[in-house]
């Protein structure tokens, strides 16, 4: 790995942490999904994956270790893999907006299933149902953020890369 890659990964992961902190006051509205999609499309699967691992590890340092953090180590890399797969077929912002939206809607379900490994399925069902309104907000906000910001941001990065 080149020095420029290491620097880039540091910047990308820092922007993920900063993006998450800035929007943490608004429940379930976040730019991490959007940024990871953009980074995977613009910088490739490998760099995005490293940035994610650094980002999640930073979360551990900030919030401490919990079972949810293991879910983070799975769910964000999975998003990168799915983005990578989709970007081979389409570069349309609609495709990515739908992916981000589905991701937001199923976030609670994923964590409910994941936490059920530790606490049992009787914990998972109320956990998921009580979080559904937040999942709806998450899915809708992800859809809007990606649809509106994907093209301007990717074009800007493209422009910066040429310089």
């Amino acid at each position, binding site marked *: 790995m080149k020095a420029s890659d290491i620097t880039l990964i540091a910047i990308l992961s820092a922007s993920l942490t900063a993006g998450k902190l800035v929007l943490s006051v608004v429940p379930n509205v976040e730019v991490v999904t959007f940024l990871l999609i953009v980074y995977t499309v613009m910088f490739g699967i490998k760099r995005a994956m490293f940035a994610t691992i650094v980002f999640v590890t930073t979360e551990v340092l900030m919030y401490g270790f919990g079972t949810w953090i293991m879910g983070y180590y799975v769910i964000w890399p999975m998003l990168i893999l799915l983005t990578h797969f989709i970007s081979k077929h389409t570069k349309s912002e609609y495709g990515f907006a739908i992916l981000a939206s589905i991701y937001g809607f199923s976030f609670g379900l994923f964590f409910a299933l994941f936490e059920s490994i530790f606490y049992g399925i009787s914990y998972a069902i*109320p956990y998921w149902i009580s979080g559904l309104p937040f999942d709806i907000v998450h899915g*809708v906000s992800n859809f809007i953020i990606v649809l*509106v910001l994907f093209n301007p941001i990717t074009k800007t990065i493209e422009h910066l890369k040429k310089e």
Partner: protein
Amino acid sequence: MNKKVMWIIIVVLVALVSLFMYNQYLAPQATEGEKAVTVEVIAESQGIEKIYDLNTDAEYLYDLLMEIQDDVKPEFEEASFGIYITGLEGYTADEAKNEFYAIKVNGVDAVVGVKELPVVDGEVYRFELSNW
């Protein structure tokens, strides 16, 4: 109309309908009527151990706490995700000591807050000063 704006409006409308359906059919519904419940307030480090056997018509735990507020002296704080309990029986959880009031329903950690927890006949609600 711009295609993107149209899609955003459609998605927001679908979300609003979904939220409405959720509130109608899936959100925890409270039952009205005379209910016999127990409220326990435990803060071991402060020597607080209070048990209240109550008969109530309160729909949600928050309403129940407000009914007995002169005794339990609940303090709340507003957060983006709703309200949470910061103090009971005159003792405020000290954030610097990582303290908070854990809510247990029949001994099991509650997954929602006091405003979403329906009061059900026979249940025991325990507020326990804990550390995170």
